[in-house]
């Protein structure tokens, strides 16, 4: 039964000095939610008996089934310590690495954290992560050493052994904190050093530099966890007990008469009790004595466990209970299960909630004590200095530190760290509740009015039509009712049009001022700059959203809630320093946001996400007509989850990008059950590839001469190619020059493919923006056909382009690439990719792409006809290569010949007219603009029209193949593809860099997993001052699915990889390789049974895309199922 009334909590919210905002952080399965259960039970929200089993904070069904927390959720608790009443806003966070974004959202809103560590497992990867996060957010942690019961019942340690184990874990945790501290000090020192150096240049050089100097200046003792400082609780959340050293100190101070202060100092550490002198003596370890902690604390606990669980000695238990003065209900004492007895005794003897909450209230800071560093960090994002912010903004710091709620001049500042979806039905205002007298009379009034309306309508309609039947009125009645419902619940905002079942509640904290229901506040987008907004008035006065401010919006706070785990309570106003839920922000806030009453407030530092989403899958509705629902569902999911990305790819696939596999599973379940509510199908993870060509290798994998094999390969390919098409259309010359003719026989193009020199593709990819602006400039030039009207690019862009051109020239070395840079006519795909089209047609000089930086401007008319088609053909070819329709990368196509109708189209002015006749183009081109000439448009037009009249008969003939420009596009595309196929083709795989931190003993296993997945270790180094190795490896994205899972499993969770996309890498094996020589047959078997890696990738992609896969129906004839004949 809950014994704290809502009113009480509301009252407590007004007193920030008695508020504690804390979160529980730990590695997965170290007992966060169980601990939360005990704390909740102390408030009577759940029964003591259920604490530890219910997992009250895990409100999702998924969470309960899997037994892990997935969402951070908050609850407000009441605690009474030494006559002071405290309000504890407790946030439970997930421990699984896939959900560490939720941890970030939780940590941001808190002032303190409870770090839970399993004493058996010790410090785990996520413990590192959460400690770092707490450190980065400047919040003060306290330690809970959990699962001490496991030392007794599972490991069966003696109290002394347990003491050693506990000490060890404590040291580990402190080591992590220490390394965080030292790294910070070092960082500051290097800053200082660089400053010093610049100043020391002038003066005599101070050569003596002590690297440890920084450490001595800074005091770090307050950071460490130490039982004698009272920031460590020893606990077993499952059995419901926990204690601080202080608890026992008080106990023994009464019993033994030793001063409590002394006891508290000596109870933990290397002390022993001298029974004769009744004194605490130092050096227990050296003298081989039992430490005090073992003798006075652990042995008692052990004795209790021994009596209850091992020996089941009822009498002894009763004696112990009596000696402690506990009152245990007989029902519990007689229970057959010793666990019940145990938890019943323990929770009275050493109540966990009391121990933890009193530590929280005494050791963790209140919102008033928010430190200056943290405020400055929150307020100035993106590496800006706090001092650079406008004065109005700097003034806000004061209100942060004051954390005042009253007064008209206090600005309201709220930070929303995430939004979560709840059923509209579960909102408190939609819960059935007894109606008040007023409401009843109101309803009566409304009903009367409705009735009157209906009568009136009836009368009017019956006048018009006597036979007006009742169904016609039914809808009116229904809508009337609907309006009524809406009136009652203004807050029930529906995100969809017809499906109002979900609504979003923002998870937020008030940093300053008091928020009231219905208040109007600014919403700061992440890119908002307060410099622009300082002159804006306070938002109370503002009727409209300010115009011209892109990242600033106005919103109305529809509802305020007190978060009580899975329940919500409506609030009218919330003063500073509290965690709250806000309804009705879904249209203004995407994931997180800063709300404020003053426009001078800057957006807070964006959440520090520990993991980036990497797992990509395509989702599609099982019934294709439900696409709209899916898209809406994905939008909602994006809003509800801080770490998911959703997008539509160019191919039309709807893609979901998630942090890991467990996260993916959750997202899909959410999508299916909450947001989209349709059946969806999920693809295998999408892996991007690129296609490229390489210089012909001189030596084969088995060190053989490649000559004969290459010849064979070319023959084979040529054979395959000519099958489908008329062979006369394609000619291949020995050195890879491919000549293709359009089906209508008008044009012939010759193209050669070359691999780009090293570094060029990378350079091109880096300067995408630049290339795009070049292309834009050129196209305006081309279209406007008027040189004067084109606008100039800004000077700095031009400089950048010049640099870019120079860089390119540097990289194109050698005879083969002579003049290559100036011959570039296009980049592809999408006119800005890492492939080039060179114009090497003799005698055709088209305006170069570098027009913007060259002063010589060719007039726009110098393009040859259909130049556009050639370029689009190239674009199409580079967008989808022949291996498996993936984009190309690092390929250069050089256009060597381009003929129209077998005649050299290098036309001079004099030949103009005759030429056009010959080149009779099917549908005609009136503005045949000739090359190489200053010839005006008028001449060309004349030529065109003359020619047009003469070739009408031919025009009809070649129409069979459609227009020439269209044909030329596909011809050029084919030519590029064939030219590509003439060279040794390779796949390029996307690579991750993978950072793994592992201890020395699991290093071997990490290597094994890496090598099995084609990974390559780049570097490996030992972290200074710890036994942790950090390994950097590269790993193909294709092999990464399940990698994290596998490595965690293999190393029992001691190594956890972080994957980030780094670069493209050529897969060395040839996807088309088949064994040809005797040795190869011997090596690989006739069918090359061991498939190459490249071939595997190609097949997988082709299959996913529905392309033709060379696959036999049955691989081995003899291995088919035999249908025996009857003999």
């Amino acid at each position, binding site marked *: 039964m809950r014994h704290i009334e809502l009113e009480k909590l509301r009252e407590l919210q007004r007193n920030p000095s008695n508020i504690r905002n804390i979160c529980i952080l730990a590695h997965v399965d170290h007992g966060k939610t169980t601990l939360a259960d005990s704390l909740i039970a102390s408030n009577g929200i759940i029964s003591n008996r259920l604490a530890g089993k219910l997992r009250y904070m895990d409100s999702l069904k998924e969470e309960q089934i899997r037994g892990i927390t997935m969402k951070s959720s908050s609850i407000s608790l009441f605690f009474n310590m030494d006559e002071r009443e405290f309000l504890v806003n407790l946030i439970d966070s997930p421990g699984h690495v896939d959900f560490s974004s939720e941890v970030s959202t939780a940590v941001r809103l808190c002032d303190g954290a409870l770090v839970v560590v399993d004493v058996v497992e010790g410090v785990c990867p996520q413990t590192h992560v959460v400690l770092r996060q707490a450190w980065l957010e400047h919040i003060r942690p306290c330690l809970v050493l959990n699962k001490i019961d496991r030392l007794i019942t599972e490991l069966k340690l003696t109290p002394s052994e347990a003491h050693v184990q506990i000490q060890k874990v404590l040291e580990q945790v402190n080591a992590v904190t220490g390394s965080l501290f030292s790294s910070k000090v070092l960082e500051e020192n290097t800053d200082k050093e660089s400053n010093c150096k610049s100043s020391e240049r002038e003066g005599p050089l101070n050569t003596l530099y002590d690297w440890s100097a920084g450490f001595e200046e800074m005091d770090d003792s307050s950071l460490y966890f130490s039982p004698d400082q009272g920031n460590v609780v020893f606990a077993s959340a499952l059995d419901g007990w926990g204690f601080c050293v202080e608890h026992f100190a008080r106990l023994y101070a009464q019993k033994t008469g030793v001063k409590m202060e002394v006891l508290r100092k000596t109870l933990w550490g290397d002390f022993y009790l001298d029974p004769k002198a009744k004194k605490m003596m130092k050096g227990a370890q050296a003298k081989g004595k039992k430490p005090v902690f073992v003798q006075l604390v652990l042995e008692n606990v052990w004795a209790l466990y021994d009596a209850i669980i091992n020996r089941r000695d009822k009498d002894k238990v009763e004696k112990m209970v009596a000696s402690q003065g506990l009152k245990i209900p007989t029902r519990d004492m007689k229970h057959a299960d010793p666990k019940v007895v145990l938890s019943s005794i323990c929770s009275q003897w050493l109540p966990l909630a009391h121990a933890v909450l009193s530590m929280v209230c005494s050791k963790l800071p209140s919102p008033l004590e928010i430190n200056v560093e943290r405020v400055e960090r929150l307020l100035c994002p993106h590496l800006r200095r706090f001092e650079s912010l406008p004065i109005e903004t700097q003034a806000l710091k004061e209100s942060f530190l004051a954390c005042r709620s009253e007064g008209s001049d206090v600005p309201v500042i709220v930070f929303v760290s995430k939004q979560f979806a709840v059923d509209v039905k579960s909102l408190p205002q939609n819960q059935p509740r007894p109606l008040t007298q007023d409401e009843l009379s109101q309803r009566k009034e409304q009903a009367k009015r409705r009735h009157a309306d209906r009568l009136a309508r009836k009368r009017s309609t019956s006048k018009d039509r006597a036979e007006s039947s009742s169904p016609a009125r039914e809808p009116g009645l229904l809508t009337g009712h609907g309006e009524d419902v809406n009136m009652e619940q203004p807050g029930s905002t529906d995100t969809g049009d017809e499906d109002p079942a979900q609504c979003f509640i923002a998870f937020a904290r008030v940093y300053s001022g008091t928020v009231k229901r219905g208040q109007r506040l600014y919403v700061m987008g992440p890119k908002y700059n307060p410099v622009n907004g300082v002159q804006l008035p306070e938002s109370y006065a503002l009727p409209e959203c300010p115009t011209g401010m892109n990242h600033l919006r106005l919103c109305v706070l529809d509802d305020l809630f007190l978060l009580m785990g899975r329940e919500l309570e409506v609030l009218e106003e919330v003063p500073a320093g509290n965690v709250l839920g806000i309804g009705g922000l879904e249209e203004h806030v995407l994931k997180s946001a800063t709300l404020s009453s003053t426009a001078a407030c800057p957006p807070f530092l964006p959440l520090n996400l520990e993991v980036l989403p990497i797992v990509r899958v395509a989702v599609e509705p099982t019934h294709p007509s439900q696409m709209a629902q899916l898209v809406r569902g994905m939008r909602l999911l994006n809003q509800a989850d801080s770490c998911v990305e959703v997008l539509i790819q*160019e191919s039309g696939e709807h893609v979901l990008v998630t942090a890991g596999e467990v996260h993916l599973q959750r997202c899909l379940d959410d999508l299916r059950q909450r947001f989209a509510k349709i059946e969806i199908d999920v693809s295998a993870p999408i892996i991007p590839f690129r296609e490229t060509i390489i210089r012909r290798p001189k030596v084969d994998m088995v060190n053989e001469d490649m000559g004969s094999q290459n010849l064979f390969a070319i023959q084979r390919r040529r054979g395959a190619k000519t099958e489908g098409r008329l062979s006369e259309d394609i000619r291949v010359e020995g050195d890879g020059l491919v000549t293709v003719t359009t089906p209508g026989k008008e044009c012939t193009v010759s193209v050669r493919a070359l691999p780009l020199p090293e570094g060029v593709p990378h350079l091109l990819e880096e300067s995408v923006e630049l290339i795009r602006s070049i292309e834009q400039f050129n196209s305006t030039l081309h279209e406007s056909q008027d040189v004067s009207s084109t606008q100039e690019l800004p000077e700095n862009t031009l400089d950048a382009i010049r640099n870019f051109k120079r860089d390119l020239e540097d990289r194109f070395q050698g005879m083969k690439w002579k003049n290559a840079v100036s011959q570039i006519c296009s980049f592809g795909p999408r006119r800005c990719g890492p492939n080039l089209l060179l114009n090497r047609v003799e005698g055709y000089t088209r305006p170069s792409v570098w027009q913007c930086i060259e002063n010589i401007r060719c007039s726009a008319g110098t393009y040859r006809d259909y130049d556009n088609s050639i370029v689009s053909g190239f674009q199409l070819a580079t967008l989808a290569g022949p291996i498996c329709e993936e984009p190309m990368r690092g390929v250069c196509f050089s256009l060597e010949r381009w003929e129209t109708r077998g005649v050299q189209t290098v036309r001079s002015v004099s030949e103009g007219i005759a030429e056009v006749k010959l080149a009779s183009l099917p549908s005609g081109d009136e503005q045949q603009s000739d090359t190489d000439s200053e010839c005006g448009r008028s001449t060309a037009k004349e030529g065109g029209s003359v020619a047009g009249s003469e070739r009408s008969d031919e025009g009809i003939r070649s129409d069979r193949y*459609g227009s020439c420009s269209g044909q030329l596009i596909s011809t050029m595309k084919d030519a590029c593809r064939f030219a590509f196929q003439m060279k040794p083709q390779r796949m390029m795989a996307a690579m991750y860099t993978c950072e793994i931190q592992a201890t020395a003993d699991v290093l071997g296993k990490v290597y094994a997993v890496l090598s099995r997945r084609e990974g390559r270790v780049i570097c490996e180094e030992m972290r200074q001052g710890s036994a942790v190795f950090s390994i950097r490896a590269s790993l193909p994205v294709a092999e990464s699915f399940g990698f994290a899972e596998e490595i965690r499993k293999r190393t029992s969770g001691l190594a956890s990889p972080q994957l980030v996309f780094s670069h493209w890498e050529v897969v060395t094996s040839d996807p088309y390789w088949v064994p040809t020589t005797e040795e190869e047959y011997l090596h690989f078997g006739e069918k090359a049974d061991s498939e190459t890696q490249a071939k595997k990738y190609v097949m997988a992609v082709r299959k996913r895309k529905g392309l033709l896969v060379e696959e036999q129906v049955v691989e081995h004839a003899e291995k088919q199922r035999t249908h025996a004949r009857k003999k």
Partner: protein
Amino acid sequence: MSIFTPTNQVRLTNVAVVRMKKSGKRFEIACYKNKVLSWRNELERDLDEVLQTHAVFINVSKGQVAKREDLMKAFGTEDTTEICKKILAKGELQVSEKERAGQLDQVFKDVARIVADMCVNPANKRPYPPGVLERAMKDIHFSVKPGRSTKQQALEVIRQLKETMPIERALMRLRVQVGAADAQRLRPRITPFIKVVESETWNDDLELECLADPGSFRELSELLSKETRGRASLDVLSLKEVEEGDEKLE
């Protein structure tokens, strides 16, 4: 009593018979099921994986081997392996179940891919992934007709799909230029072919940039060439007008 005793009898199981009639005689060879087509598609290069035995039969099921003279007369050689290869290449066979299923599946996928290539979702101007289309095609109970070309079937299926889901042909971007003489007269006649007019400039002659259905391209080009006797120009600016790049849903 049979003259065969079990010991010197070779029984073949899983036989696919390939037959060929030549010079009035019927020749048969015994192959493994599901392998003949992959031999013909040059996927399988190992003859022993295809042939059960190199012998050439008159009747496989009865085990009657062809006489040497007949072979000589029909094929001009006695090398049975060579003859087997000839029969494999040219002979008629009963396509086995798996092979047929594989073929139909391939055509089905091909059709889906062509549709994906040609069509877009009008809501966001992006293509549908082939997977979605395959399912949609199954939903409308589209079945492959082995005789017709995949492109024809694709056009057919687009028409059917339009009834159940929002799908449209991806439009072509065209540029039409008509001389001053015909511009006024032709403009209204061009209109029905065009879906969207992007830009239209009149300075004496008409220059029109527009999006049109690829299906009407042929008619439009015929109209222009006939009416203007070749003095109008029709350029394809892009074959398929689709949204480029990825879009973030937010």
